[in-house]
């Protein structure tokens, strides 16, 4: 436990040792808010809700989360510090957990820093706060699921670019399976039950139900088990 905590602290504060963290946070906030205003027509919608803001998160995460996750293991491998790490008296699970939770806290921080959006709708109208909280929870859970996939792909290579591309591809598939436009395309070729089954494996399906304020068990189980599964594979990949 001590070792996990030590790794967690090193990794989390490590983000702020370089300007990368600040650049990331600023660009993420600009992109998240910019999409809501200019693409999502946040003001013209004339409703006190953050739908126009949250609806872009699956697409936004597609690029931002791999940018955070790509270095988790690839960098350790490239610089050789992985040799220090795995000759310390700690288990691979402790190492994976320490690093993953640090990364998750960092992306969760980025999501939470969009709170002025919530304050804005609160000032302009009377939004459904339960729904907004539920959307934030869904967004943070989804970010964790993305990051677990990035952590896995990062452990497969010492090249950060390969790690980035690989995780973006995997996440893209998981977003597409539940995206209406893509489901309709699939529906033209495959039977409906198969399309529906595939959609249950998608980020989008579970995230959208949380965006509507539905805190159902299926969504929680989906995101948490996806994280557990990716991190389990991550441990296996590192144990060799």
């Amino acid at each position, binding site marked *: 436990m001590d070792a996990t905590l030590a790794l967690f602290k090193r990794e989390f504060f490590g983000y702020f040792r370089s300007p990368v963290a600040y650049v990331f946070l600023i660009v993420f906030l600009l992109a998240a808010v910019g999409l809501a205003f200019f693409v999502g027509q946040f003001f013209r919608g004339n409703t006190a809700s953050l739908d126009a803001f949250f609806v872009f998160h699956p697409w936004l995460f597609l690029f931002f989360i791999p940018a955070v996750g790509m270095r988790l293991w690839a960098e350790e491998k490239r610089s050789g510090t992985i040799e*220090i790490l795995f000759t310390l008296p700690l288990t691979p699970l402790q190492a994976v957990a320490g690093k993953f939770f640090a990364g998750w806290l960092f992306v969760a921080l980025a999501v939470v820093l969009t709170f002025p959006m919530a304050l804005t709708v609160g000032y302009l109208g009377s939004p459904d706060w339960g729904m907004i909280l539920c959307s934030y929870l869904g967004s943070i859970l989804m970010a964790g699921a993305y990051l677990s996939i990035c952590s896995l792909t990062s452990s497969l290579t010492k090249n950060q670019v390969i790690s980035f591309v690989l995780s973006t591809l995997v996440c893209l598939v998981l977003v597409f399976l539940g995206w209406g436009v893509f489901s309709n395309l699939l529906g033209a070729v495959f039977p409906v039950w198969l399309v529906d089954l595939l959609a249950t494996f998608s980020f989008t399906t579970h995230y959208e139900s949380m965006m509507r304020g539905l805190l159902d068990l299926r969504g929680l189980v989906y995101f948490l088990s996806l994280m557990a599964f990716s991190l389990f594979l991550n441990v296996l990949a590192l144990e060799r």
Partner: protein
Amino acid sequence: MVEIDQLSKRFGNLLAVDRVSFSVRRGEILGFLGPNGAGKSTTMKMVTGFLRPTAGTARIGGHDILEEPLAAKSRIGYLPESSPSYQEMTVGEFLGFIAECRRLGDRAARGRAVERVLDLCSLREVRHQPIETLSKGYRQRVGFAQAVIHDPPVLILDEPTDGLDPNQKHEVRSIITGMAKDKAVILSTHILEEVDALCTRVIIIARGKVVVDETPAELRDRDPGKRLDTVFRQLTT
């Protein structure tokens, strides 16, 4: 202190380490020699638990590295080749991090451990500098400090003097002899003078196999009057 038992490692078709066995006692400094690619680093990586052996095992103070990895690893200090470290951390932060991962007690106890190695490796004047700003000699000493912070009974050093100037080499060697009295030390090198200057025993491996296991004097006596590197060449080619 260290028992290596029929250790083998296969990478695809290449048998990098082939049934290597030896043991090292407390107080011994074992020079681990061989041409590049002979399997020195691979053997060390298996002994420290970084690589999983294809066959065989190593025991550190009686603890099997495969069966009780945590107990074995806590008894080893390891300096990997080219001493990697987290470049963006300062020397003090990095050593503190290692102390925490190694569970060296509470904050005060960890602080004492860091202070001890800062003095031992003469790092005090750079403790607040990021490691990436240090010269190669200092970085090597950071690697050293990291390896001995928990005062381990077994020390495994992969080319500790590689890339250092003659003064720095001398310094590193005196650190090693200073610490070695009550430890079992394995160090790899391809500098033969180092073996003479430091080691109490020599093992030479070539193509993954142990070809020599004796004292430096015995090695020299194999061909009296010739230079050590001539002997080395005869044994490894």
